[in-house]
């Protein structure tokens, strides 16, 4: 919806309805992707593969890719503004956990409302599992199509483990195992052996790769089975104490990396440079961050880098009684609720998500795709991790307040990691903040 024409209507306040010429439609698609920069593969796929193919098939539709170079949170700000007023791109990349908040705010319309029959009859739904479809859904309605999903684990430096005398086939089965290994590594001279994300600067990466991965191991989630937010519990305290042990009491992790604005990159660099031996991250870390040719490429990766499952606090103490945990998120694409050309936008969206285009995407960046008819490429890492971890994985609560609560989680971890507050004090602060966000009736205390 490039409102070029509206420039002529300057001064005519309220002239928001733009006539769409019957003979040609302009579609804009935005993602946090820059060719040669952030998420380059997605940008290349769209620009080189999807758009030319789509325009060839639909000569009356022009598609433009807007490469957004800022941060995730900044794109969220723009989209929230745009989708509430009718500005913005026709199609945008979108993180699934924001769907509930946007849907409640009227900043997204369900595909059923927006498209109707064509949406319901799309062939792709037969190849997308309900679990994956739910990533881009809220309250029983579907708002977009997921591109894929991911899993989380502990990445390890085998060379450093070996130095510390830890066997090559090491798989921790409790937090203590992990901490013991970290202590040994520290003694062996590894500066900051363990990285469990914390702090505000890393945003959702703190919640997903840090807090959730630990919390699930205590058998709890951010919400209980009734969808109420847990604001006080032994699980929360255990997680905060784990952070305290790692970063404050024993110095097993790089405290600076949790607190500084560019901390996440520092943690990547630590892993690359052998200063960190265990790092909790998503499969993206393997597929993209440490991949050959990238900035954080790990030299001799095949021999040096491996991964283990994230253990529960104690064996069997994890959620659903599991021994190991993982959590998954997912991104996809949504349609602007105020687009002038919903049908054309849907045409493009479903084209992008067709088997043919998704398969082509695997050539740009292999990953776990949402369509079951798009095979995971012949990639041992992805095959193994998806087979091992997808059965164990969990999804975030589908709640419009999740985003705000997640930020409180980040603050709580930062308060502990910086040594400013004790776990009890930090949890008390968290309780007050979450209660203010969701209302007391939507919270629950397990203490």
């Amino acid at each position, binding site marked *: 919806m490039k409102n070029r024409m509206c420039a002529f209507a300057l001064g005519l306040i309220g002239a928001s309805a733009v006539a769409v010429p019957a003979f040609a439609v302009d579609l804009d698609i935005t993602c946090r992707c820059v060719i040669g920069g952030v998420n380059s593969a997605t940008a290349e796929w769209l620009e080189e593969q999807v758009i030319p193919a789509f325009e060839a098939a639909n000569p009356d539709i022009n598609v433009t890719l807007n490469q957004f170079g800022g941060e995730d*949170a900044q794109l969220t*700000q723009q989209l*929230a*503004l745009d989708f*509430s007023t009718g500005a913005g791109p026709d199609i945008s990349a979108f993180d699934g956990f*924001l769907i509930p*908040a*946007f849907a*409640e*705010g*009227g*900043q997204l319309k369900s595909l059923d409302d927006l498209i109707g029959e064509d949406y319901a009859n799309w062939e792709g739904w037969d190849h997308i599992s309900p679990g994956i479809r739910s990533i881009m859904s809220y309250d029983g309605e579907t708002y977009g199509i997921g591109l894929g999903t991911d899993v989380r684990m502990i990445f390890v430096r085998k060379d450093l483990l070996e130095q510390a005398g830890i066997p090559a086939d090491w798989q921790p089965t409790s937090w203590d195992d992990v901490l013991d290994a970290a202590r040994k590594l520290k003694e062996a001279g590894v500066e900051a052996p363990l990285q469990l994300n914390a*702090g*505000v*600067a890393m945003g959702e990466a703190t919640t997903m790769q840090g807090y959730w991965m630990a919390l699930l191991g205590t058998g709890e989630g951010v919400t209980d089975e009734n969808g109420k937010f847990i604001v006080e519990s032994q699980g929360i305290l255990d997680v905060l104490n784990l952070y305290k042990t790692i970063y404050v009491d024993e110095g097993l992790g790089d405290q*600076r990396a949790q*607190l*500084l*604005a560019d901390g996440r990159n520092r943690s990547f660099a630590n892993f690359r440079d052998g200063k960190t031996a265990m790092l909790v991250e998503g499969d993206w870390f393997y597929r993209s961050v440490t991949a050959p040719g990238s900035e954080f490429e790990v030299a001799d990766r095949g021999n040096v880098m491996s991964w283990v499952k994230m253990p529960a606090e104690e064996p069997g103490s994890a959620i659903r009684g599991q021994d190991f945990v993982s959590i998954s998120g997912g991104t996809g694409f949504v349609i602007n609720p105020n687009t002038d050309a919903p049908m054309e936008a849907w045409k493009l969206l479903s084209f992008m998500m067709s088997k043919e285009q998704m398969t082509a995407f695997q050539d740009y960046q292999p990953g776990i795709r949402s369509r079951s008819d798009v095979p995971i490429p012949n990639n041992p890492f992805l095959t193994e991790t998806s087979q091992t971890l997808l059965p164990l994985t969990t999804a975030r609560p589908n709640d*419009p*307040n999740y*985003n*705000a609560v997640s*930020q409180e989680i980040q*603050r709580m971890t*930062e*308060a502990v990691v*910086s040594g*400013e507050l004790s776990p009890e004090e930090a949890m008390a*602060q968290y309780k*007050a903040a979450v209660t*203010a966000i969701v209302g007391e009736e939507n919270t629950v205390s397990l203490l």
Partner: protein
Amino acid sequence: MTTEPISTQPQRKVRNFALLSNRAGAAFMLPAGLLVSVFVIVPFFWVIFVSFTNRTLIGKTALNPDFVGLGNYLALFDPATFFQRGQFGFSLILTTQFVLMSALVGQALLGLLLAWLIQTVPPWIKRITETFVIAAWILPEVVIGFAWFAFLDRDAGTLNMLLTGLGLPPGDFLLQQPFWVIVVFNTWRGAAFSMMLFNSAFSSIPPSYFQAADVAGASSWQKFRDIGLPLIRGHIVTDLILITMWTFNTFTPFLLTNGGPSYRTELVSIYNYRVAFQDFQFGKGAAVGVIMMLINLAFALIYLRLGRKKAPKS
């Protein structure tokens, strides 16, 4: 010469002559008036209005915000949390310290010193010093952000290289002394304005005043204290108030520290941004904005009073 009274019409309201008639004056003000109305005054009232609601950017209350009266303000001033790190009171106190240290002490004193120094030094030193000081002021803030990041880098930053070279221990400034980093940064960034203002103030003093002091055998310090300073008092007041307001509202330190670590550099402007754009709580963010406006209003009133006192118009 006529003897008849020339004007027998009833006395109409006579407009006094002005260089610009009221009508022309209004026409001259129209473009600026329109722009300021649309982009400054309307948002101003919008912010006040929204500060009484619980409007958010996303979620239920994005669509149907409720009127919450003074709720946002009461929450900001909740005595239970007021002084906690990351809360409004904390950032208000932090900002006060920041303004005191970086504007009143840093920028004003350094600006005064610089303005005094460059009156007397050889022109080429004056020009070079002036250029660097002004460069710090005019370079784009994004660029300045990167430059300072590189300057303060713990491992290879210019500052630590320099300190090590001088045999001093290097520091982890962004983490250990973030507050002093932004104080020094803001002093560096803004000293140019005070320097230029004081410079023009000093050059408006007739040289004969200083020559008279020279003849009387006054030292530089005495000349500065007894002649320079009293004569530029008006400029000092202006400078202090303007830089106080600007420093109070500045957002640039965000580029260096993001307000962290753990809120230790979260000035009110950054707090405002976080609440409104990261937590998406517009109602509360607007309330912060309104309080900032009130504080600015206080500054403006002080300025108005001092300005009036100095120049009683006849």
